[in-house]
């Protein structure tokens, strides 16, 4: 095959941006088209549920929108044809064309990074004050309500919902979190640690209701209350729905790509269709580092996969697998929660600190005789050391011995103060 002359990237968030940047970094000098469904230039999402929602600083300024690059940088320095505000609606992998509005955009190489969209609660669409939190527009709307002093109800005690409840509390507002499952965060961190982390809410003055569903979100034009399945009514001016996301693959119907919890890819992020690769939240790929199929919803995977998918798409003969030890973080109530690896474990063991009383702890996850995951709460000095061990396939026994050494060193340091 001749060298690709036009790279098309569908999705103008982190993975899409990194695809474009990586393509130029490898020396690709052909055309690049970047397609974004939103009107906005690429922006960074983690702050949208954290610092961006915070109250104004001393000078009265709210946080600025976290755009990654200026339009000028994208167009002039990176020489990208940026097309924002219209989503891609179809992919023809035989003719190698993407449909965007009335345009047909031909590609030699294609990176799909359309991400995921928030799951919504049916029936609440028309009410003012009910929002998901996925996009910049969502975050701006939620921030407006927080600025107005909204009594906040968060539906879903996952990381996004928890961050929002935390921000509301920090602003001195009432915050209630409703979780349908008996324990939050089980899928992300396992049972014991999910319960331990969730306890942070009550400690910080938020109300957490688990094991109860929402039966109605009511109001006249704007939201006024949330009615729970047990009949409880909670008054609310703002309801944030944080019940997960759905991979954005609707536009790929009929494209011939294999869709199963996202776009199914091999370890090179290749979809199996010539020239077509996927990256970020939409990609369900075989992670060679852990030897399991995964679809990530985190910053690190989006950034790295975007770059890897573009490199492989432009030079498929020298394609390299993308493997990683997954990583995510979440900031609540001035506490930093970090997780590396996989929560699917045979055993979870607390190796330092005490969730019952302390504000810092470390838990390790065992699969067979291998270290497979680690969770820290305010353990920034610890977490990445375990990521390195998991990357190298380190053993459980070595990890425990290392943890004990670190625990003693930490204790000695505290005693010396």
């Amino acid at each position: 095959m001749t060298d690709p002359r036009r790279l098309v990237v569908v999705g103008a968030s982190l993975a899409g941006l990194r695809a474009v940047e990586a393509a130029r970094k490898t020396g690709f000098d052909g055309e690049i088209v970047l397609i974004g469904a939103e009107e906005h230039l690429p922006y960074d999402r983690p702050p949208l549920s954290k610092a961006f929602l915070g109250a104004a600083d001393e000078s009265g300024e709210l946080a600025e929108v976290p755009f990654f690059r200026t339009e000028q940088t994208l167009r002039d320095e990176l020489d990208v044809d940026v097309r924002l505000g219209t989503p891609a609606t179809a992919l023809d992998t035989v003719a190698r064309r993407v449909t965007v509005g009335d345009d047909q955009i031909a590609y030699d190489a294609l990176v799909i990074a359309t991400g995921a969209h928030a799951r919504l609660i049916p029936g609440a669409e028309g009410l003012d004050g009910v929002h998901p939190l996925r996009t910049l527009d969502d975050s701006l709307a939620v921030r407006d309500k927080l600025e107005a002093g909204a009594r906040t109800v968060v539906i879903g005690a996952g990381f996004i919902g928890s961050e929002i409840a935390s921000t509301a509390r920090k602003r001195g507002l009432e915050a209630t979190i409703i979780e349908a499952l008996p324990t939050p965060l089980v899928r992300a961190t396992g049972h014991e640690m999910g319960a331990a982390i969730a306890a942070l809410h009550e400690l910080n003055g938020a109300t957490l209701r688990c094991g109860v569903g929402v039966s109605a979100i009511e109001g006249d034009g704007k939201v006024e209350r949330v009615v729970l399945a047990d009949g409880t009514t909670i008054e609310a001016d703002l309801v944030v729905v944080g019940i997960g996301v759905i991979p954005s693959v609707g536009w790929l119907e009929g494209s011939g790509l294999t869709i199963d919890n996202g776009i199914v890819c091999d370890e090179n992020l290749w979809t199996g269709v010539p020239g077509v690769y996927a990256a970020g939240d939409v990609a369900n790929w075989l992670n060679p580092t852990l030897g399991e199929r995964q679809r990530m919803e985190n910053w690190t995977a989006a950034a790295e996969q975007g770059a890897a998918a573009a490199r492989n798409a432009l030079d498929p003969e020298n394609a390299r697998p993308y493997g990683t030890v997954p990583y995510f973080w979440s900031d609540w109530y001035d506490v930093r929660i970090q997780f590396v690896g996989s929560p699917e474990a045979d055993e979870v063991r607390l190796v330092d600190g005490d969730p019952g009383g302390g504000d810092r702890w470390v838990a390790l996850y065992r699969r067979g005789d291998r270290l497979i995951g680690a969770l820290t709460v305010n353990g920034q000095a610890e977490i990445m050391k375990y990521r390195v061990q998991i990357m190298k396939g380190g053993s459980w026994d070595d990890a425990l011995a290392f943890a004990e050494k670190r625990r003693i060193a930490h204790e000695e340091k505290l005693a010396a103060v």
Partner: protein
Amino acid sequence: MKCVTVDFDKCTGLGICESLAPDFFEVNDDGELIVLKEDISDADLQEVEEAVGGCPTEALKIVER
């Protein structure tokens, strides 16, 4: 000589750089990033580039000095 620099106004001590280039970066008990060495040899360049690309706050840069 290529060197790595940190913008401490941006860095929040997430530590991804430590996991990708542990000879260069370490986060301390206070959650602050410590740069263990600044000069980057050709052999180390790739891992430091990965650390720079992996930083969610874009706090790291490679510069010529």
